[in-house]
């Protein structure tokens, strides 16, 4: 290996390590330290309390629902944006990023107003006896909104780079469109879809701003875990806040590891093909 002649390693690495240490590592270590100082039995008692467990259930189930919705809708959106050209597709493509650009609190009050029983959509749905705002369905809508871009933006580039020859070969062998999609295109998209799914799911698990307005926030039924942490803080119950926050932190690390493994596989796939 040849010697590196470039200057600036001490300065750039120093700035990086200082910043990461102070801004990222120190606070997370402090949180872990606080949670660990509880002792196993107290820690377990807090994180396995019925109200905490109910909050995990709501959060995970709603995140699953939102992710499944985004899988179907995100895939359809990515397909439409790469395969078809129609008036205004550039606008649609740009609007996909709105959920990332719009502050979560703004999205939260806006979705609530839309889906409340007197809102544009809520009033129509109420005629069919469907309540969205202040129910788990509302939490799902908020989660689906904030994590929509993930699957679209991970699938889109792979779909764009797909070699038409693969489809042509399958067509020449007499495959129907649906068979070709299932047997040829979908397997090629799968690594990207899985990476997008895990990002989308992780984001939904941690989302706060967009959800608290629409959720209703009833303990045991529509209270998400992030809100429970916030409530414990407002009650000055710092130990409980630390313990439940550490559960969210561990979940985030697990999701990060899962995403990394999925992406490593996706990358190996693209390099090979």
């Amino acid at each position, binding site marked *: 290996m040849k010697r590196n002649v470039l200057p600036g390693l001490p300065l750039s690495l120093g700035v990086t390590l200082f910043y990461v240490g102070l801004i990222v590592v120190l606070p997370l270590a402090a949180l872990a330290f606080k949670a660990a100082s509880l002792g196993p039995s107290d820690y377990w008692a807090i994180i396995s309390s019925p109200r905490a467990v109910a909050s995990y259930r709501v959060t995970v189930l709603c995140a699953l629902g939102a992710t499944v919705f985004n899988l179907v809708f995100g895939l359809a959106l990515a397909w439409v944006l790469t395969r078809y050209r129609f008036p205004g597709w550039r606008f*649609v493509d740009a609007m996909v990023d709105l959920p990332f*650009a719009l502050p979560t609190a703004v999205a939260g009050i806006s979705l609530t107003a839309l889906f409340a029983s007197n809102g544009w959509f809520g009033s129509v749905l109420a005629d069919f006896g469907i309540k969205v705002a202040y129910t788990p369905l509302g939490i799902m809508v908020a989660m689906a909104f904030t994590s929509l871009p993930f699957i679209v933006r991970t699938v889109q580039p792979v779909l764009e780079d797909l070699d038409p020859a693969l489809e042509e070969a399958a067509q020449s062998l007499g495959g129907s469109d649906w068979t070709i999609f299932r047997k040829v295109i979908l397997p090629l998209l799968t690594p990207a879809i899985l990476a997008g799914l895990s990002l989308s799911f992780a984001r939904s698990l941690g989302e706060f701003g967009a959800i608290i307005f629409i959720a209703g926030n009833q303990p045991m039924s529509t209270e998400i875990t992030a809100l429970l942490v916030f409530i414990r803080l407002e009650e000055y119950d710092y130990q409980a806040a630390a313990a439940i926050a550490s559960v969210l932190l561990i979940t985030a690390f697990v999701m990060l590891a899962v995403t990394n493994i999925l992406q490593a596989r996706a990358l190996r796939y693209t390099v090979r093909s």
Partner: protein
Amino acid sequence: MSAIRTGRKPPRVGDNPLFRGLLIGIVLIVGAILVLAPLILIGFQAFSDGWRVYASTLVHPDTRHAILLTVITALIAVPINTIFGIAAAWAITKFDFPGRRFLLVLIEIPFSISPIVAGVAYLFVYGLQGLFGPVLDTYEIKILFALPGIILASMFVTAPFVARELIPLMQAQGRDLEEAATSLGASGWRTFLTVTLPNIKWALLYGVVLCNARVMGEFGAVSVVSGNIRGQTNTLPLHIELLYHDYQAAGAFASASILAILAVITIIAKVALERQGAGRVPRPALVTQVAVASETKP
């Protein structure tokens, strides 16, 4: 392959006009309901009590203070974040050192952590219950429930934003140009400013725009560390929540309209920068894989 092709391209999968029209229709309708409607509704609701209420909300001292606090936070957090992003990208892409991959993981951690967890974590560093709380209290230095806490929490949630735009690009560009400049006698700074910067300026600006949007709109993390003191530590998103819970819906939406306009400007800037080539380097959703990819390359 292209030699066989004559004139008209064969129809690709999903080109059946009926299927095509149906799929476009469904996607547009669902997209309009889920994404476009919230944006349009903000405009309607903001003016629901007339433009007088709208104007009076915007000139109210509390709103003006919230806007000022949000802008000050961005003016401090975004440049510091940008310097960090450039330093991190330079260190990671121009040098080989052990632990490069681990460093990438650390940089990207805030991306997957709940903003509430971030806020709580800062509480246990600078709060009275935290590591430095008692010391800071003795010297009467206020970090939490004040501007420094808001800035720190904002820097946490946006730590990866600039770095993750620069790292894939600078990795792809390699080190040859910088090595040539240095061997011809250019100093490190000169090499960076005249060789590297022109190649990364659009991606850098892209990262800065996204970072700014997130800083100005951050709610969860700031909500924990700010203390929500009206007219003192309320940023614009927190001000919106306060008005909303005070049953001043029109006022809340009027304040929200400022952030909605910011979001639209951000998207327009994003599209413009993408036309300049920013954000086009093929990259994984998590930059951690960039280093892995380069390491495994034969």
